[in-house]
C-alpha cells in the first residue's frame, strides 16, 4: 500500500463505517416496514438513481420511487385484509397502528467489501444477504428463503453518503418447504385474501436478465463483481446499467 497519512486513513475508515451504517439502516427499513421512506431518506437526490433486480433495472427516480411506492401499497392492502380477517385481534388498532402487520422481511447484510474512491466522492460496496421473508398470498401467509447479494454505488452528498445505483440480486428464491430447484407451489385460496391476486409489482423499465436464479441446468455463474480500489467513479465499473 502506498503511504497514506493518518488523517486520510481515519477519513477512509470513517467513510467505510458510514457506508456500512447506511446499509444497516437500509436493511432496518425493510424490517420496520418503512420501505416508503427508502428513496427519500437513503437514495441520492440525483435523477439518475437506479435499482437492479434479477429481471432488470428500475432506472431513474420515477421508476425507483414507483418500486418502493408499490411495496407501500402492498403493505396497505395486506394490513387492510388482515385487519378484516382478524377483527377481534385488531379491534383496538387503527390501520396506521397496524400498518405492516403480518409481513416480515429482513435483509441481514453480511460479508461487506467497501471501497472508497481515491477522490472521496463516491464509494462502492457489496454484501451477501441470507434473507427470509413472510408474504401474504391468496393462500394466506407464506415464507420464502433468499440467498444473494446486495451491491451499490454510493455518492457523497451534503447530508452524507447516499445510494446511487443499487443491486438486489438473488441466487436462490425458494418457498419454504421446497427444494431449491422447485417452483413455488401456491396454497389453496383462503377466503378474505382474494384481493392479493390483484397486486402486482411494477415491471423494471429496463428488462434485462441480471441474474438467472439457480437451477440444475444453469451454467456456473460468478458472484457479482466485487469492488476494487479505484481513484474516481467510472460508469464502466458501476452497479447501474453499464453504458454501451
Amino acid at each position: 500500500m502506498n503511504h497514506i497519512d493518518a488523517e486520510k486513513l481515519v477519513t477512509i475508515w470513517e467513510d467505510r463505517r458510514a457506508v456500512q451504517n447506511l446499509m444497516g439502516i437500509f436493511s432496518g427499513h425493510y424490517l420496520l416496514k418503512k420501505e416508503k421512506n427508502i428513496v427519500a431518506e437513503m437514495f441520492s437526490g440525483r435523477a439518475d438513481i437506479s435499482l437492479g433486480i434479477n429481471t432488470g433495472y428500475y432506472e431513474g427516480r420515477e421508476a425507483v420511487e414507483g418500486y418502493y411506492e408499490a411495496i407501500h401499497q402492498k403493505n396497505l392492502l395486506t394490513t387492510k385484509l388482515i385487519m378484516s380477517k382478524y377483527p377481534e385481534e385488531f379491534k383496538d388498532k387503527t390501520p396506521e397502528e397496524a400498518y405492516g402487520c403480518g409481513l416480515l422481511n429482513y435483509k441481514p447484510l453480511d460479508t461487506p467489501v467497501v471501497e472508497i474512491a481515491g477522490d472521496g466522492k463516491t464509494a462502492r460496496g457489496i454484501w451477501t444477504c441470507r434473507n427470509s421473508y413472510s408474504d401474504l398470498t391468496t393462500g394466506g401467509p407464506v415464507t420464502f428463503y433468499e440467498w444473494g447479494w446486495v451491491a451499490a454505488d454510493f455518492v457523497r452528498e451534503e447530508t452524507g453518503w447516499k445510494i446511487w445505483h443499487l443491486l438486489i440480486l438473488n441466487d436462490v428464491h425458494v418457498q419454504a418447504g421446497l427444494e431449491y430447484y422447485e417452483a413455488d407451489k401456491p396454497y389453496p385460496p383462503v377466503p378474505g385474501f382474494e384481493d392479493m391476486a390483484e397486486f402486482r409489482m411494477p415491471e423494471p423499465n429496463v428488462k434485462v436478465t441480471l441474474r438467472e436464479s439457480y437451477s440444475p441446468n444453469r451454467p456456473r455463474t460468478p458472484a457479482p463483481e466485487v469492488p476494487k480500489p479505484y481513484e474516481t467513479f467510472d460508469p464502466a465499473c458501476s452497479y447501474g446499467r453499464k453504458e454501451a
Partner: protein
Amino acid sequence: MRYNVHYTDEENAVRLMDVETVKDLLARRAYYLDGGDYAGELRDLWVQDPEKRKTASYGENWGYLVGMESLEKKYAGRNVPETGWGAVHTVNTGHVHLAYDGKTARGLFYDVYECSASRPDGTAETIVVCGPLACDFIKEDGGWKIWHLFQGADHVFTVGEPYAEVPIPRPDASNPVAREFPEPDVPLKTYDPDYGWADNYPPMPDPYYTFRPEESYGPEGHPDYVKEVTFS
C-alpha cells in the same frame, strides 16, 4: 495477556485500517467461493512469500492441507461442475486481534453458506452449512494475505431431509462436506461438531504480541497436534 505498548497517532491509524483490511480480505474470499473460483482465491488472497507458502494451511474438521502446492493441487483442484452448481457464503461476526508488532492478525468469524449441485436425474442437492471460520493473516509487501485458514462445519443440513434423522455421531460417509474434503496432509480430528464448541477449537483470538505457531490456526496450533520427528 495485556502489553504496555504505546503507538503514535499515525501508528494507531494504520492499526485501525489494518483490522478493517483483514476483515475485508476474508469477505472477499466469500465471493471467490460463490463463483467456485478456488484457484483465483489462492492466487489473489493467499501468501506469496516463498517461506510463508511452505507453511500456509487450510483446515477442516478432518485435518489440514499444508503448503500452497498442496492447496493448489487439492483445494483448488476440487471439481466444481460447469452446470448446476451454485453457492453463497455469508461471513459474519468477525472478531479480530492485530498483533502488537503489527505483522500478523488473527480473526474468528462465522460462515453460513449454501451450496447446490445438480444430480443426474435433473434435480439438485443443496446443503446448508454453518461453521466457524478462523484465520491467521500476515502482512506482506503486497498487503495483508491469508496464511492459515480453518473452515469448520458445525451443522450440515441437506435441504429437504429432516435434520432430526441425521445420526449422532454422524459418519463421514453421510456428511457431504466430509466427502468433499481432500486427503489431508495432516489428518486430525480437529473439530467435532457432535460436542459443539466445548472444546474451544478454533479458539477465540486473544490479544498477542507476536505470531507463534503453537497459537496459530494452522496444524501446530491445534492442541492435539503431534509433530512427527524422525530419529536417524
